[in-house]
Structure formats: C-alpha cells, structure tokens
C-alpha cells in the first residue's frame, strides 16, 4: 500500500500550467527524491501536498492507519494533523522567537488545556507546560541545539537554522516528511553531515521522506527512487543509477535537442 499517491495532478496559475498530469506514488518507509531544474514545479507539488494550494485537477491520496483519505481539498492545519510535515526552501522559522519556542509551537496540538485555564494559569497549565518543555528539550538534544535553546532563531548560523526547521517539522510527529532543498546554501561539509542526519531520522523515526534537492551528491547517496520533473511534467522515474544515465534527464539539466540524440 502506498502511503502517498498523486494521480493526474494538474495545477494551473491562470493560463500558466505549472504542473501537468503528474503521477507519483510513495511507498511506506521509502526515501524518494524529487529533482528537476529551477522552475520545474517541485515546490508547487509540496505546496499542493500541504494544502497551501488546491490543485486544478487530480487527486492526492494519503494513507494513514490503513485508511485512505483524499487530502487535496483539506486545509494545511488538517493535513498536518494527519501526519504530513514539511520544511521550506527559503527557511520559514519564527525568526524573532527563541529556538525553544519554535519547537514548543509545533507541539501545540498535543496541548490539552483550554483557553480558560490559560487565562488564569491553573495548576494543570503548569504541569502541561513542564511536559511540553521536556519534550522540546528532548528534540533539541537530538538535533544538537540544546545549548542554543534561548537564542533567537534568526541569530543561528545558516546550517543550524536548516536543522532547526527539520527539528520543528519532526516535533509535529509526522509519518510523511517533505524536505524542500534541505542542503541549499550549505558547504560540502555541512551537506554531508545533513545527509547523515536525514538518513538517521528516516530510520530512527520510521518516516517516509520525500526530498527535493539540487545537490546531486545528497540525492544519489540517500534516495531509493527518484522522480525527475521538467517544465511541470514528469520526465523520468527510477533508481539513482537509472536516472544518472537517463538521456532525457541529462538533456533537461544540460540542455540540447531531443531529436539530435533520438
């Protein structure tokens, strides 16, 4: 049973077709890559999966606990509660809040006390807040951000901001994680550390991961399967080996006329 199946997905912004007839399936526990040149529509797929856009056509099905749901008309917060979390290409941390608060906010849906107890700070608020703090510290420790928890998110170095964003997504306790160019702007050293981290959380949390990445060293190293997107259309699908030698993929990235080779 695939955890995610995208069927005949089309997205048009006015007259511009950003995505045409996309079919993607992701099996449970897979780590799938999504690559393609700039403007191919990769992030648009993520925005459709998380409910930020509603697709023009097609369905997105998500399977959770054995039941399949169509999620393409749901709101982002509902989709998140079903267990889909994401990071953003252009980091979207809560910049003026502390590292700790960034994590605490993403555990909010576990909070049981209502607004009224919050107004009067009843004892249960104290005990639940302590619980939230404990959970947050746990996550921060895993990601090596424990020592920086009182710093503002905007003051972290770039690599750590990326890591915090992944930590924040994981704090929502997802089963499907969407990573949008996690290695963008990192140096080779940071990139290889991040690659190890992604691999580790994938195994440790039993996640299914869909990964957008430009850095081929990351994609080729960790993805089990890769989809290639160009001008809003899927042009190839396969294992890293197959993609590496695929003519259409090479042309999409390096340019050139298709008929010359055919």
């Amino acid at each position, binding site marked *: 049973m695939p955890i995610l199946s995208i069927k005949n997905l089309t997205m048009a912004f006015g007259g511009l077709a950003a995505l045409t007839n996309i079919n993607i399936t992701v099996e449970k526990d897979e780590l799938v890559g999504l690559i393609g040149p700039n403007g191919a529509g990769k992030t648009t797929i993520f925005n459709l999966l*998380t409910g*930020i856009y509603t697709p023009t056509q097609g369905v997105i099905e998500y399977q959770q606990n054995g039941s399949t749901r169509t999620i393409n008309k749901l*709101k*982002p*917060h509902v*989709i*998140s*509660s079903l267990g889909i*979390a*994401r990071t*953003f290409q252009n980091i*979207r*941390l*809560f*910049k*003026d*809040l502390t590292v700790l*608060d960034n994590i*605490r*906010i*993403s555990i*909010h*849906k576990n*909070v049981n*006390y209502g*607004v009224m107890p*919050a*107004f*009067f*700070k009843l004892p249960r*608020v*104290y005990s*639940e*807040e302590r619980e*939230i703090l404990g959970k947050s510290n746990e996550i921060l420790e895993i990601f090596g951000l424990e020592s920086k928890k009182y710093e503002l998110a905007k003051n972290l170095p770039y690599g750590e901001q990326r890591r915090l964003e992944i930590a*924040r*997504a994981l704090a*929502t306790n997802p089963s499907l994680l969407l990573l949008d160019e996690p290695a963008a702007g990192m140096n080779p050293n940071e990139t290889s550390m991040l690659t190890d981290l992604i691999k580790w959380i994938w195994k440790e949390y039993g996640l299914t991961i869909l990964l957008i990445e430009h850095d081929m060293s990351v994609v080729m190293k960790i993805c089990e399967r890769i989809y290639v997107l160009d001008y809003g259309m899927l042009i190839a699908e396969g294992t890293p080996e197959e993609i590496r030698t695929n003519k259409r993929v090479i042309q999409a990235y390096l340019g050139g006329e298709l008929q010359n080779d055919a």
Partner: protein
Amino acid sequence: MKDTIKRLLQYTASVVLLYALIQLLIFAGIINEYYQVTLAMICINIILAVSLNLITGFTGQFSLGHAGFMSIGAYTCALMTLRVGGLFSFILGILLGAILAAMVGFIIGMPTLRLKGDYLAIATLGFAEIIRIILLNLDFTGGARGLADIPRYTNWTWLYIFTVICIVVTVNFIKSSHGRVCISIREDEIAAETLGINITRYKVLSFVIGAFFAGIAGALYASYFYYIKPGLFGFLKSIDILVIVVLGGMGSITGSILASIFLAVISTYLQAFAEFRMIIYAVILVIIMIFRPQGLMGTKEFKPEQVEKRIKERNNR
C-alpha cells in the same frame, strides 16, 4: 514550585501595595480631583492598549476598530446603570458590555480576519464606523446627543481591579501555549499553518479577547465621565489607542502600560500650554518615532526579576 509560589506572593503583595499607596494619596488629597481624571484615563488607556496589543502586536492583525468595541461596552453599561441603577447594574453592565463586545468581535472577526495587512485595517475601520452609525441612528442610544447623566460608579478601586485583571489575563494567555501560537501567526502564517495550527481560530480568538477588554474599558469610561456620544468613538479614538501601542512597542505589555502613563501625564501637564498642546504632543510623538522606531520597549518586557539580578551582579563585583 516553591519559587513560583514565592514569586506569585511577591507580585500579589506589590499589586496590593500599589493600590493602597495610591488610595492613600487620594485620601490625603495629594492626588486631587483633577489628577484623578488623569489616573482614570491611564487605567482605561492601559486596558485599551493592552487589549489592542494582543491583536496587533502579538497576533499581528492590524485592527483599526478598537473604538467600536469600546463604544459597545460604554453604551451597554450606560444604559444598564441609567435604566436599572445601583452598583449591581454597574457590574452587570460591565460584564454584559464586555460579552456583547466580544460577540460583535467574533461576528466581525470571522469574515475580516481572512484579510491581511492594510485590507484588514480598512475592513475593521469600516465595521467600527458601522457600529458608530448604528449608535447614531438608534433611538434608545440617544442618537447624536448621546447619553447624559450616567451615574458614576467607576472609582479608583474598580479601575484598578479591572486593569489588573486585564493585564494578568493577557499576560497569562500570551505565556501559554495558545499565546505562543498567536505570536507564531504574527511571525509566519504559512509556517504556523503547516505545523498544524488553525490560524483562523487563533486570529478570531485574540480578536474576541481584545474586544472583550475594550468593552470593559468602554464601560468604565462611560461610568466615569457621566456622558457619552457616538462621536467619542470615531476612528480618531481607534488611532489614539494604536498610537499608544506603537509608542510602547508592538508586542510588549509593559511597553503599552508605560506609554499609557507617559502620554496621559504629558497631556495633563501640557494643559497649561492651551493651544500649543496638540502641537507639542505631536512633536514628542515624532521625535520618539525617529529615535525609537520600535517603540519605547520594542518587543521586550520589563521584568522585576531582571532588575533584581542586575543589582545582585553589581553588588558582587
């Protein structure tokens, strides 16, 4: 746990002490009738500014309709005390006014909070004008003449009680998980949404809480100044409140308190300059905005614990 109780006791003690001190000064005649008006304005402005700060400074929803909610509280309390009379009707009027304002806040918030930035500001401004015009045209609100001879029940005690309640409830809310969520909406709506936060719910919630306290402020106002009319709650009043919030710092409760006191004291002392008063007032605002564009406090809060720590550090040196 022991620390929490100790701090709680310290806060309670200082709150009671401040009340007793000012009450004493009123008895002794040092704060005379004239300065008592300033004191009332400070308290009412604190409630208004803190509640607007929750909406604009913390949740990041730019609202220009706060005077509208204030007017609902004012008229409700005024009508209650005029028609029924007695201290009981005053307290009932305050609560009813606040609840009515919160309900109107909910009705206005549902459609308008889908809008962003300037559009939201204009929509809330429009709704506040609608409220004002309704009050202007109804018979039982006295039309343009307004309501006069409202019995005065508001005194220092009531003002202080409601100001403290407003501050404590707002601060508790902001410090809770729900409050953190509101701040996250200000920081990045899309990110908040993808973390599973129902942003519409929290925007409306902060709007309703803000409207509730604005209603209380209006009720206290009506019962202190004997007389209200729709013209008092026009959009200039909303701007006045916004000025306090911006001056104190968007996202700082202590900033709003400080700015309320600061502006009330300045305008009291400027009474002596008669016609130059508004010019000097405006110049002071311009100067502050040039040198501290983030407001007096920015998003920081004044915490007694920090002062204590600083003093200890200095002594140890």
